[in-house]
């Protein structure tokens, strides 16, 4: 893409009336997740490393938030703090006004790696959270089967995770997390290990599920397109230490579709994310110190 096409793009902050109205509606909803001065330091042999510093953020009910940032910006630390799998050095996380203290079923999580229980069938994996909360077997099974159907894997209800493909496993992981009826769904690069095609399918699956379920989603990714395609707002972090760089309201209207990847709003947002995350990269190709090892006349470019 040349600088000319960039120049023709609108400002990423410019929103159409529909989009602006939608954001207005989101902001009117109650705040479900409140993050205050969240800081996490790790002591290492080289001294104290600040992974996250003074993160302030709020998410409203049924909002879809993506978190993006360069590698080493503490994205994973951030989501683990929200999940309660790690504890902050300072600051706090409030869910529905209650301070997070340890992991709990009100914050469902989908991990990057496959974390289905290999000894349980798909159905029993989805039942797991319900049973842990004391629901009876019959009811849990009924609800689990509904979820399995919702993710389109009813044929695999009695299969073991080892018999599923990567994409199917992550669909089950999403169903398992949602079946436990969480207030917020935390997703840590859940599609990172999938191939491009499966990834695209999973993104549209996720949007469909989110549309039909009363749940707020906080989604970590390093894929700019994925973030814009999925999110209402994007929380952009910067590295060393991890701090809020910018919070972008995505101007791409909903419902989203893959055709929007080349819409002006999409490209404008993408350019802004590029600037924030790779401020210098992409400008000039790095020259490798390599000399010619082929015969003259045998050119490929």
């Amino acid at each position, binding site marked *: 893409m040349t600088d000319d096409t960039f120049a023709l793009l609108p400002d990423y902050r410019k929103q159409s009336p529909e989009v602006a109205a939608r954001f207005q509606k989101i902001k009117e909803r109650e705040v479900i997740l409140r993050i205050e001065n969240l800081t996490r330091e790790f002591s290492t042999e080289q001294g104290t490393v600040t992974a996250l510093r003074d993160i302030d953020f709020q998410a409203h009910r049924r909002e879809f938030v993506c978190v993006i940032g360069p590698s080493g910006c503490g994205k994973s630390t951030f989501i683990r703090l929200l999940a309660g799998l790690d504890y902050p050095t300072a600051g706090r996380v409030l869910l529905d006004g209650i301070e997070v203290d340890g992991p709990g079923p009100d914050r469902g999580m989908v991990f990057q790696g496959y974390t289905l229980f290999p000894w349980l069938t798909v159905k029993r994996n989805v039942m797991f959270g319900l049973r*842990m909360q004391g629901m009876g077997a019959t009811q849990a099974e009924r609800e689990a089967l509904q979820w399995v159907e919702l993710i389109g894997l009813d044929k695999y209800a009695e299969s073991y995770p080892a018999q599923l493909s990567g994409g199917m496993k992550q669909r089950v992981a999403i169903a398992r997390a949602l079946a436990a009826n969480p207030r917020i769904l935390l997703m840590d690069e859940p599609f990172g290990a999938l191939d491009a095609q499966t990834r695209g399918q999973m993104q549209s699956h996720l949007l469909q599920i989110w549309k039909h379920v009363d749940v707020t989603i906080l989604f970590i990714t390093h894929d700019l397109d994925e973030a814009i395609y999925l999110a209402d707002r994007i929380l952009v972090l910067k590295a060393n230490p991890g701090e809020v760089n910018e919070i972008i309201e995505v101007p791409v209207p909903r419902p989203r579709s893959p055709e929007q990847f080349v819409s002006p709003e999409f490209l404008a947002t993408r350019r802004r994310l590029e600037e924030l995350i790779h401020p210098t990269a992409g400008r000039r190709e790095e020259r490798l110190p390599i000399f010619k090892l082929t015969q003259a006349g045998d050119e490929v470019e």
Partner: protein
Amino acid sequence: MPKSRWLTVGKELPANRRLLLAVLSFLIPVAIWGAVSYVPFLWHPQVRIEDPGDVLYFDAGDRVELALFREENQRMLDAGMSPAQGVRANPVFLPAPHEVAVAFYTAFKTPPRRTGDAWLHESLWHSITIIFWGFTLSTLIGVPLGVMCGAFSLFSRLIEPFVEFFRYLPAPAFGALAVAILGINDAPKIAIIFIGTFFQQVLIVANTTRRVEPALLEAAQTLGASRAQLFTRVVVPAAITDIYNDLRILLGWAWTYLIVAELIGRSSGITFFISQQARYRNFDNVFAAIIMIGIIGLGTDMVLSWMGKRLFPWKTGKGGRLAGFLGRLFGPREQTVFTR
């Protein structure tokens, strides 16, 4: 499909070749044994006397060194007396394969030399019961303890240092002590198997349990699992398949300790049978008994391996009735012993 090679780094061979090699793995040692037994010039360092002739101290059936046989016969010939007749033979401690094969049958049919001694099948059964009780007692205590050590640092730090020390103490060294405390019958033998197995078991099971994927524990926590549920519903089922395989290996070690254990107190079981038969120089029976231990060991392991596939269908993808039972056992349940 490209023609598969016999030697390819990191590649499994096709099933028919694997079977062929497994058969060869047994046939080759037997073939070597057969060659040494049946081809005279390969070894046969002795001569079995058939007719002692005029050599005074030779008897029919004796085995004498080849050099001595030649020397004596030369002397007889020089003196004009009749030389001894004999055939080249291996020492008595190396019977030929067919003799051992026959012994496999006859050993069960031969009554013990002294009344009151055990028949072979009784000896074998006695050994199996000793192993069974030693190993079962050790497993009943060792596996839960190991899992606790693997799951909770508290138990690991409290128990493992001492266990680590104790496992270096050779189990046979406790023989005399075991007899003094437990008498001369089966109890001290079971105790030796127990000591030999238990301490290794705790450490191995603890290590296996520690290898449970931490992400599974975190996933369960975000689904609302309590500490007790985390232990019973995640740690135990996640580790159980590897623990099962650990037990298969440990059972092999238990057989090693058996030989020592059975010499303690009143010697008994297969070890007693072997040492008695060796004393009577029935080495065909000795070999038959040793091979029988191998067959029992390998057979047990194959049965356990087959059972493992039934018990843990998620490893193979095949379900069974046992699988259903286990699924119910380890699947989420309403009532647990430690509910919140």
